[in-house]
């Protein structure tokens, strides 16, 4: 699914990722944890192709193809999805128009016809119910005036509608109350299957109580310095990150 090999990346000229290796197979859920500034969010942005985030060395293959020759939209159409930590507000563009444009792009890429407006509306309403977001939000501007939790639910709704092959969730849990966290977890768990993979970027073990990961990685200094199973997350919760950083140093 995803093979990251010795990835180096800079943000505005500053090196953030420093030889990162990661392999995600179909159906796996990986959690990436690590202290502030370790490069967690950068990984997601580099994979999604955000301007200003530049891969300077190494490679990333997604579904066997070089990711970096693909535009951001091509990556998305090929099933790569990044749930943003800070979703952008776009007043004037309705959430519904935005969602339909996204879903149509994905469908057309797969050689399917675009959905008619009525079928799409029905689908979107169901998705909004699943993520516990008032369907009235479909008519509002994209994320416009949404609370932090509502923005995260909106990201989750996009994921439900787009049905990606690989979803990278960048601190989707941060700023969520426990009810919202359970909604997010239920959404992810409902989508888990043998072919779909998830990378959960998080600060806290809390999310992993609800979404059980197959692997847990610790990112430090732009590299993965330790990998393990879910027990590693519990150990981190107890002992913090310092001991790993000490060991690595």
């Amino acid at each position, binding site marked *: 699914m995803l093979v990251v090999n010795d990835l180096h990346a800079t943000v505005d000229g500053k090196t953030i990722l420093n030889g990162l290796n990661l392999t995600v197979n179909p159906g796996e859920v990986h959690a990436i944890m690590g202290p502030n500034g370790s490069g967690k969010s950068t990984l997601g942005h580099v994979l*999604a*192709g*955000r*301007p200003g985030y530049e891969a300077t060395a190494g490679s990333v293959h997604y579904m066997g193809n070089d990711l970096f020759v693909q*535009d*951001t*939209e091509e*990556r*998305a*159409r090929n099933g790569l999805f*990044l749930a*943003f930590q800070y*979703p*952008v507000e*776009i*007043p*004037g*563009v309705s959430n519904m*128009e*935005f969602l*339909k*444009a*996204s879903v*149509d*792009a*994905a469908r057309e*890429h797969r050689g399917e016809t675009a959905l008619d407006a009525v079928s799409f509306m029905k689908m979107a309403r169901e998705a909004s119910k699943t993520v516990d977001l008032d369907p009235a939000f479909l008519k509002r*501007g*994209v994320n416009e005036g949404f609370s932090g939790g509502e923005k995260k639910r909106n990201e989750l709704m*996009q994921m439900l509608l*787009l049905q990606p092959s690989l979803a990278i969730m960048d601190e989707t849990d941060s700023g969520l109350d426990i009810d919202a966290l359970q909604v997010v977890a239920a959404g992810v768990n409902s989508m888990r299957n043998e072919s779909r993979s998830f990378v959960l970027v998080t600060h806290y073990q809390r999310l992993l109580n609800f979404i059980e990961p197959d692997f847990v990685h610790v990112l430090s200094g732009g590299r993965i310095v330790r990998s393990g199973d879910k027990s590693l997350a519990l150990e981190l919760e107890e002992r913090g990150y310092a001991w790993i950083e000490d060991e690595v140093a």
Partner: protein
Amino acid sequence: MSEHMQAALDSAATTAPAWLKDVLHSGRTQWQNTTWPSRKIEAWKYTSLHPLQQTFEAAPDAASDIGTSDIPDFSENRLVFVDGKYQAQQSTECGTDSGVRIVRFAEAGDADAARIKEHLGNTVEANKHVFANLNNAALSDGLFIDVAANAAVDKPIHLVWISSGEKPAYTVNQRLLVIAGSNSQATVIEHFINRNETSSAFTNGISELVLEQGAVLEYYRLNLERAAALHVAGIHCHLADSACLRSFYATTGSKLKRLDAVVHHAGSGAHCEMNGIYLPQGSEHIDVHTCIEHAVPHCTTDENFRGIIADQSSAVFNGRIHIHPDAQQTRAELSNRNLLTSDQAEINTKPELEIYADDVQCAHGATVAQLDETSLHYLRSRGVSRAEAEVMLSFGFINELVDGIRLSALRDYLRPFLARRFAGDAELARHLL
């Protein structure tokens, strides 16, 4: 320079009704004494009147077969004019029982003529608006909309002004006088289009909106002529006590468009909402000057204009709010935001707040920006192509104002019209339609 427009003056002199002749004469004298506005004058600093320096003929007499099937049906109350001349066959008018009378100057009886003359030009400061003199000098016809006191006119009055383009260069003298009687409610749409895009049809328009005490008037102005069309217009509004004017200006580009929208808060408690969008492309030029005069206390103004300036086009926005010494307890807000979608596009924006009262709340702001890369990336990260994302964001920028239009039929017409305008390829606008 006035000789370029002589044909229209001569034509009007022979066709104008007798009771208008003295307006014509004084207009003519003033126009002939007018100095042609040069770019050395502040009000014309960024707009060249070079396109008007050619010889314009008088408007064609009767245009052949101007279709109106593409014009939206906002209302059963639609009046169509071609090159300034009323087209009865293409128009539908409600009777007088709706509380509104619509009278053409050329057909006005003595009582109407007297009423028109009583009000005509009162709101226009002709020394500041030189093209008003030209309009007076060439005034052979006009439209008078008389809304009775306490009338609630539910059907919008849709005025369609079409330039036929049947001559290569000619003037259309367009004039509207609306008197909204006390506590009346009405909606007027002025809708300008052209048929032959290579013709330098020059519309010189004056619209006077007089709102008596407590009147509520919605005024929409669609300046949608394209290509070679030339349009210079003054919209002059007078608001009595507690009157409320809600206005929206949608202006797409052509070779030259200049709008001066002036509002006089003359009665306490009056409210003015003035929103608008301007969208030049190619090598088009649009100049919007607004001026809100707060002469009395307790009035409010909300003004919002947005422009998207594309290609090598240029635009001017000059928004003046003048708060006189007596205008205490005024609240006035002006915002102007601009999006430049090309390196060669040009915007000159200038908010002007002049405040002589001390107990007022005023705010103004102007911004110039390009499409937000973060927003573009967000849309693209969901699979939307860059080209479509650009169209969606551009449209979204003005759609915030379009969404505020109260008249839903107009909103529903403008949305796809504008979306198509942003997308060279209709496919790119499909999610906005």
